[in-house]
């Protein structure tokens, strides 16, 4: 099929637009990487590329006395919340889809009701609870309020119902325990949903800012998101070191994303 000139024009126009759009979207990250090599003078002169790369910014960032604590706390809390939240949600969804018991409707609606209460609106009361329990400055404080999600429970319940109760009854007949059934039948069959929940939680938890800011007072318990706003690099005329720290925590995720992108897409695209 021969293309009309207008189509060829459109084709190239689209490519040009796509490139332009991509540059705009990528710009802040590119600037972050570029400016992580800036001297303070480069910042003052509003440069986009460094005059001479200041690799020492990365040394400063890595040598910051709390950087490793921030990183360990962030990775630790986000992994823990992802795992625990997924477990909590799996058990709740299993009970609500596979078991018969009194008050089921009531419990389900009560749990779903939590969707209606934004965490941001009960920030202070939750802070008070954690403080009264003597949990401030601990990993527990950072992750506790986010360990249950009704939205994710509904998602998983949808997936669990699809598996049907017949398999469960059959498995019970064969003498399989609930745990065995959950881990060798239910969860593998709802793989994409479970994976989505874990990744979602991992990202939200790693990125959360306001809550960890409130419940951590000691530098050694802070997460990286709080830490990077308190490095003090920018205030002491070392913005480059601040950007280097940002680059250090962002680039690993960009790499992980490059490898998992296909998988996530496959989970989301219905064919």
């Amino acid at each position, binding site marked *: 099929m021969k293309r009309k000139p207008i189509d060829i024009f459109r084709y190239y126009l689209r490519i040009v637009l*796509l490139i332009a*759009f*991509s540059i705009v*979207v*990528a710009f*802040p*990250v590119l*600037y*972050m990487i570029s*400016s992580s090599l800036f001297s303070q003078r480069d910042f003052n002169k*509003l440069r986009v590329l460094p005059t001479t790369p200041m690799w020492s910014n990365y040394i400063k960032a890595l040598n910051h006395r709390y950087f490793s604590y921030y990183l360990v706390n962030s990775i630790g809390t986000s992994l823990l919340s992802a795992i625990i939240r997924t*477990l*909590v949600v799996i*058990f*709740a969804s299993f*009970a*609500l889809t596979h*078991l*018969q*018991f*009194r008050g*089921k409707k009531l*419990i389900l609606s*009560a*749990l779903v009701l*939590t*969707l*209606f*209460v*934004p965490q*941001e*609106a*009960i*920030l*202070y*009361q939750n802070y008070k*609870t954690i403080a009264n329990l003597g949990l401030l400055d601990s990993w527990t404080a950072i992750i506790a*309020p986010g360990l*249950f999600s*009704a939205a994710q429970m509904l998602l998983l319940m949808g997936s669990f119902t699809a598996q049907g109760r017949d398999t469960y009854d059959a498995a019970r007949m064969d003498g399989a325990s*609930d745990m065995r059934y959950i881990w060798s039948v239910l969860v593998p069959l709802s793989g994409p949903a479970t994976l989505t929940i874990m990744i979602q939680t991992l*990202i939200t938890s*790693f990125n959360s*800012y*306001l809550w960890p*800011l409130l419940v951590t007072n000691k530098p050694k318990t802070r997460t990286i*998101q709080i830490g*990077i*706003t308190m490095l003090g690099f920018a205030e002491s005329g070392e913005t480059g070191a601040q*950007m280097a720290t*940002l680059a250090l*925590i*962002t680039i690993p*995720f*960009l790499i*992980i*994303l490059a490898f998992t992108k296909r998988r996530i*897409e496959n989970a*989301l*695209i219905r064919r």
Partner: protein
Amino acid sequence: MKRRNESKAYLYLAPAVILAALFCWYPAIIGFVQSFLTVNASGKVLGFAGLSNYRSLFADKAFQNSLKVSLRFIVLFVPANTFVTLLAASMTRRKSRFSAIPEYVFFAPVAVSLSAYSLIMKDLFRGNASVINKITGLKMGWITEPAGAMATLVILGIFLDFGIDYILLMCAFRSSDKSVLEAARMDGAGGWRLFLQIELPLIRETTLVTIFLALKDAILISAPIIILTEGGPYRSTETVMFYYYLEAFKSGNRGVQNALSALVIVIAAIFMALYNSRRRAR
């Protein structure tokens, strides 16, 4: 057997119920009850207040202002965000040889954290003399002037939601029923007409989801403001939830804080109910 089954079910549900009770129902109810009481900064109840907390909330100029700011943010952010993410998704809706590259670029913002984006934007949009002005040739005061600060906040908001909205919309496009598209093409539909009349309506569900997500984020935005502008200049970016943060944690004004907390929950509930009824109606 049945009895055992029952207690087992409760056991499985216990973690979820305890967490929901401790970190959601309890604080929501306490906040609601205390919104009708006089409570001092350290949490001691001093007496019954009736509606006076609500009255002083609505009488507060700063609160009235924050309502306006939030409304302005929602009106600017939600359509802009929807348009931009839809644009990115539709430009890459068909797989081609090189589409993996823009797909990655558009998805990548999910890997950049809120504080990282906020700090980067804070530097890029520094003021009259800023990198953005230098590149674009604009003469905008950005975070140093009210209109510019709001614009910067909207841009930051878009970047924060971009990755996740994009991937949802792009995957929705690719999940669309191919036979419908083929049929339309047979009928001679093509280009814009095909896109606007067939492809876009096919992803209506997902678009609605992203709009609601954006709306929710817009109503609740506070953390990026803490890093970017601290509500300034002159309260021009002091949204309702940032105002809540100031009153609850900086001023320790429990009356206003509880009244606002109750109010936000009611508003959120109305939104959720509307959303659900719409979904169910379909």
